[in-house]
């Protein structure tokens, strides 16, 4: 196993495989024809709420409904 084997350009730039794969998937989704495009983008939407806890109690949560997270 060569430890200095040629790495892919995205890894050399500091990106992980998951980030690379998600970027590729997003680009493909953005190139779809209309009804499929909105379905695909809707499917990948992420909604989550984050709350910080202090002294054993949650503070007010922040609701994030980002569009597809990369």
């Amino acid at each position, binding site marked *: 196993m060569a430890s200095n084997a040629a790495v892919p350009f*995205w890894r*050399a730039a500091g990106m992980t495989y998951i980030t*690379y794969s998600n*970027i590729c998937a997003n680009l*493909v989704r953005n190139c779809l024809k209309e009804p499929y*495009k909105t379905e695909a983008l809707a499917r990948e939407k992420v909604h989550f709420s984050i709350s910080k806890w202090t002294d054993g109690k949650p503070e007010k949560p922040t609701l994030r409904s980002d569009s597809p997270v990369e």
Partner: protein
Amino acid sequence: MLRRASGLLARPILAARARPFSTDLPAAQTADATFVEAWKKVIPNMDPPKTPLSFMQPRPPTPSSIPSKLTVNFVLPYASELATKEVDMVIVPATTGQMGVLPGHVATIAELKPGVLSVHEGNEVTKYFISSGFAFIHANSFADVIAVEAVPLDRIDASLVQKGLAEFTQKLSSATTDLEKAEAQIGIDVHSALNSTLTG
């Protein structure tokens, strides 16, 4: 008393890690023999609970002669496109080029680049454009292809592809940091693959 049984449950998992290559396993077992024996020693009156292993389909063993069909599992995060479908050949877009997989193919793990996966069954060919993923080909003529996004070719919009290609080519020339250059390069790779699929 039941706590010791959960410690025993952990033991078969350690035995599994000692196996060298998962592609040349004999047929997998359907029940944890060691767990069942140990359970019966401690709690002979209760039936042993089912472990995850007994819910799984056992891996078919590698046959001695090459089978006539390849069994393909093509899965996406949100759907299973093909589940144990018997086909004649699949062509996967590996990073090292288009790779044809026939029954009896040597066990391989291939990383996929954005490209077209074609499934050949008799006279019909079904093509999907894959964004990226992996293909695992096992010695028993089973192939697992996993991708994040796969679309049939008629769902791709050519004008959006051209627009994207132009946009990313422009971004590459104006990129400063390594990361921006890498993102622009990824954009160009994906869009050129989409483009050549539509025109080729």
